[in-house]
């Protein structure tokens, strides 16, 4: 299995990716340490909650970009891991000569993406811990809620996308898999555009989001608690479906 995981690491250009990941992480930490506040010249007493939230805004944006960037990398993994329709026959010939079963081969892709998601999430949390220690005391609760929600949602969303994508690529082939991916992106963009055109965006601010989160703590706790179980169940289901199609000769 470690051999298969190493193969996947090479397929996604793992060394380059790791170096990029660590450099971005280090730069973000350095920026956070060197510039803890935008309003650093003002004493706490002179700031209202809105200023304090704006103070933490770039920290949240940084966190968002970091998680989004590597979330996208996770989502793009299936195309790099699963062979395209043209080379698939040759790859199958190759791995059937190895002491691994088809299921192990498929499982290695799922495990690899799972490990990537775990690493991205862990680094996001380290970034969060370092970032939050430099917050003003009053900022902690609202910022903690927003950043936790952001990181959690993006990592779970990436795993969900990877589950659908990987399942489609393995079960339906790469051309149909790409069609599924395009459909997902179109759906997501439509939802975002719909919100910007028809949703109530003029009053959206970090403070309002923080207040909304504080008012809906119970619902969010439910999502936080059940979300990972649901997403991981879908991920496992995707693996089982891929194995089922693989038994029928799709892979």
């Amino acid at each position, binding site marked *: 299995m470690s051999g298969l995981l190493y193969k996947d690491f090479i397929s996604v250009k793992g060394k380059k990716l790791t170096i990029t990941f660590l450099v971005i992480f280090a730069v973000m930490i350095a920026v956070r340490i060197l510039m803890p506040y935008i309003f650093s010249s003002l004493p706490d007493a002179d700031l209202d909650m809105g200023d304090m939230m704006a103070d933490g805004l770039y920290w949240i944006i940084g966190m968002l970009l970091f998680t989004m960037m590597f979330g996208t990398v996770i989502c793009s993994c299936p195309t790099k891991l699963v062979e395209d329709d043209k080379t698939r026959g040759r790859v199958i010939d190759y791995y059937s000569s190895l002491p691994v079963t088809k299921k192990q081969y498929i499982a290695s892709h799922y495990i690899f993406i799972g490990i990537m998601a775990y690493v991205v999430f*862990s680094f996001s949390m380290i970034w969060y811990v370092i970032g939050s220690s430099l917050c003003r005391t009053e900022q*902690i609760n609202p910022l903690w809620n927003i950043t936790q929600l952001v990181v959690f949602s993006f990592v779970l969303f990436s795993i969900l996308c990877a589950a659908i994508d990987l399942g489609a690529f393995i079960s339906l082939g790469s051309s149909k898999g790409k069609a599924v991916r395009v459909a997902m992106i179109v759906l997501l963009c439509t939802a975002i555009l719909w919100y910007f055109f028809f949703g109530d965006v003029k009053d959206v601010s970090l403070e309002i989001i923080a207040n909304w989160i504080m008012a809906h703590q119970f619902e969010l706790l439910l999502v936080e608690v059940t979300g990972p179980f649901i997403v991981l169940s879908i991920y496992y289901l995707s693996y089982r479906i891929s194995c089922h199609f693989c038994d029928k000769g799709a892979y």
Partner: protein
Amino acid sequence: MDKKVQLKRLIIFLVLAFGLAWGYEFIFIGNGFVWDMKDPDSVRLISLVSLGMLAPAIAHVLTRVFTKESLKPAGKDSMMLGINIDNGKWKVFLFAILIPLAYSAAADLLLCLTTRGLFDTSVLPDSGMPNSMAILIPVSAVSNGVIVSFAAFGEEFGWRAYMMPKLKALMGRYPALIVGGVIWGLWHAPLTCIGHNFGTDYPGFPYVGIIIMCLYCILLGGILTYVTEKTGSVWPAAFLHGVNNASPSILAAFMNAEKLSQVSLFKQIVCMVIPFVLICLILELRGRKKLM
């Protein structure tokens, strides 16, 4: 392998694990940091101080690099990073994730049964939450403990994947479990001295706290070593440690804080130790039965 070489490697690892963690923690302690959950300034820094948990993992990798030991992720004499759930090993993973729920609930149950007025169903409603919310505590602990297990992994990757195999090779299983637990407990000493785990208001502070921490680490270490040995992987131990740190007991939500503050530390420790000892005994007997 030569015991001298093993000992040398273990000493290098311990110097690094203690040096890195204590050095990091003393920066905060020197600047007046105390472990006080009621002080907002302390709360802001607690997570940052807790990153010291990554020190044993860094020490593990550095020791292997310095002593030119194998860096292979899985297999014999490896870093124990592999995950193998075949041959029923998934049950050990499940056990590792769920057992903290059992022993923490058992400890709290003992405490509630022996302390009149401690169990109070009005605690949650008074804080504005329905009693049914309590069911989310263990579920949330499992979910957070597994997903946010990187800090626990930091410790386990050092103690279980490096220190314990070396100690077992040097002195045998049982002495290794005790010595390993004492080392692990002493490693926590700077934090125990600023109020981590037991606070600062107890007789014999901080020496009694350090001794209790060593005892706790011996018992918890026994279970953590068991799951590591059973799977040949450090991951179940990391998950167990993660869930353990997430305080998974339902009963804790129903404890009257005022009454709890009146319960002696000795009584709390006895209630905590009994379930641990029982679990360790059961695991040990099961292990012996299988050998026979």
